[in-house]
């Protein structure tokens, strides 16, 4: 496999670009592997990559129902951040930030990680106090955070309505300078190429139809391309978690599947320098390198597996966006779409061994799974390789609900749609 470099680009420019090869193979499934990962999205691919690179377990298969990266890894709004309050979350997402910073070099694939800053707007003095608390918590955990007043926000974001006449006048904001965005497809392709180079088999169009069992143990999967055996089976299927786990006989999980919609506008010249979130509602916006404004808001709020939402939510998102940026009222939308997210009962993920012997579960990402992609795979690979969680993901167990130790960042209670 060719290593990507400036030299290769120039060489291929002179030879008609005939020197490039596909970034990953299309192998036939083997009869057995050491580890099977169900789900060829961001988290499954990064898990396989870290299994191979960190833990030297290379006899690994990724089983993907559709084509690689066809789920939420290609449907998110590409935001990468770690501005959390609870120590469990901050520790985990800081690990992710660390991995993001060197990811392009590690994978030899440009994931276009752009630490342009994430700015959370505050609209009341009370919100400023909360942001000061959160910023201090982030700094205590080793992260970076800056509390900005209204003038500082206005200087950096010329399009924002910072006047007193705004529907919700802006008081200030909390900026995490090291946060930003990355190119979502490139993350999937980069991890896929990296894993494939280390010997991982990526089996696309290979849908899991059932689990192979010996007694209570899960010993592999039954797919439309035949039986595949493995000592360990990891599940990382996001919105489809309940469906896949039902095949293994697990009928109840602390998860509901919801739809989250996202939107892209026509291209503009650079206007949003960072990722901006609205503080009096739920909206996050950034500008892609092509110039389109990428933004999204809340969940539609009801259980669904349909990858599309309803219009009331579209109206809500648009009115919030134009309340922040009145100048965008005449902008046209190019695309909107929906992704099915696995909302957990406390808004925090599950990365754990079990719930059955031979099985490992990575789920409950709510709508924050993209930024977690590297750390999720890193922790899940550790859990699979060592049969025990790393201290970073130990709090994200499945038992925490029953034990009364939920990790509820928002304090919203056990209603998945509220997180």
């Amino acid at each position, binding site marked *: 496999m060719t290593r990507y470099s400036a030299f290769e680009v120039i060489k291929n420019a002179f030879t008609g670009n005939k020197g490039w090869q596909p970034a990953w193979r299309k192998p036939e499934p083997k009869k057995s592997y050491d580890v099977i990962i169900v789900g060829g999205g961001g988290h499954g691919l990064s898990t396989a990559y870290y299994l191979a690179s960190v833990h030297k377990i290379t006899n690994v298969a990724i089983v993907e129902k559709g084509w690689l990266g066809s789920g939420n890894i290609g449907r998110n709004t590409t935001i990468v951040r770690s501005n959390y309050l609870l120590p469990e979350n901050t520790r985990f997402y800081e690990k992710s930030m660390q991995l993001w910073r060197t990811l392009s070099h590690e994978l030899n694939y440009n994931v276009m990680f752009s630490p342009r800053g994430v700015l959370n707007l505050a609209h009341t003095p009370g919100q400023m106090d909360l942001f000061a608390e959160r910023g201090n918590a982030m700094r205590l955990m080793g992260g970076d955070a800056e509390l900005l007043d209204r003038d500082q926000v206005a200087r950096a974001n010329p399009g924002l309505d910072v006047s007193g006449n705004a529907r919700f006048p802006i008081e200030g904001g909390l900026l995490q300078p090291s946060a930003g965005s990355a190119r979502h497809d490139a993350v999937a392709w980069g991890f896929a190429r990296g894993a494939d180079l280390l010997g991982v088999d990526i089996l696309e169009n290979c849908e899991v139809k059932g689990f192979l069992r010996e007694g209570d143990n899960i010993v592999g999967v039954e797919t439309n391309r035949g039986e595949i055996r493995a000592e360990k089976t990891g599940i990382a299927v996001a919105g489809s978690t309940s469906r896949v786990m039902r095949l293994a006989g697990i009928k109840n999980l602390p998860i*509901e599947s919801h739809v989250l919609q996202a939107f892209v506008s026509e291209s503009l010249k650079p206007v949003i320098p960072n990722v901006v979130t609205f503080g009096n509602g739920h909206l996050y916006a950034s500008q892609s390198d092509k110039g389109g404004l990428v933004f999204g808001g809340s969940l539609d709020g009801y*259980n669904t*597996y349909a990858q599309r939402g309803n219009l009331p939510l579209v109206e809500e998102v648009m009115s919030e966006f134009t309340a922040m940026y009145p100048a965008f009222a005449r902008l046209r939308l190019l695309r909107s779409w929906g992704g099915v997210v696995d909302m957990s009962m406390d808004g925090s993920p599950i990365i754990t061994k079990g719930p059955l012997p031979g099985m490992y579960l990575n789920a409950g990402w709510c709508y924050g799974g993209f930024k977690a992609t590297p750390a999720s795979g890193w922790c899940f690979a550790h859990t699979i390789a060592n049969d025990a969680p790393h201290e970073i993901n130990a709090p994200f167990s499945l038992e925490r*609900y029953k034990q009364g130790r939920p990790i509820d960042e928002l304090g919203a209670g056990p209603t998945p749609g509220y997180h």
Partner: protein
Amino acid sequence: MLIDCPWCGPRSVEEFSYRGDGTLKRPALSDNSMNAASAYVYNRENPAGDHMEIWHHGNGCRSHILVKRNTLTHKILSCELLGPYSPKRKKKK
């Protein structure tokens, strides 16, 4: 999505708020097991297909409605009133 409210007729989903899975049964007060309590609070079947769920018509007649809806197609299959005016409850008397 239009929800066919038994009082008000078909109304837009934005008039309603979602109250989640309608099949859950609160464990009896005499039931001391933690398992039953935590299952009631946290565990959901989350089916892909027909789903019984409760909606509150907050911007309308304010009744709670038990809705059967397909989570793959968003098609609403049935709506019935919950609470004191539920037709089922009258029959019991």
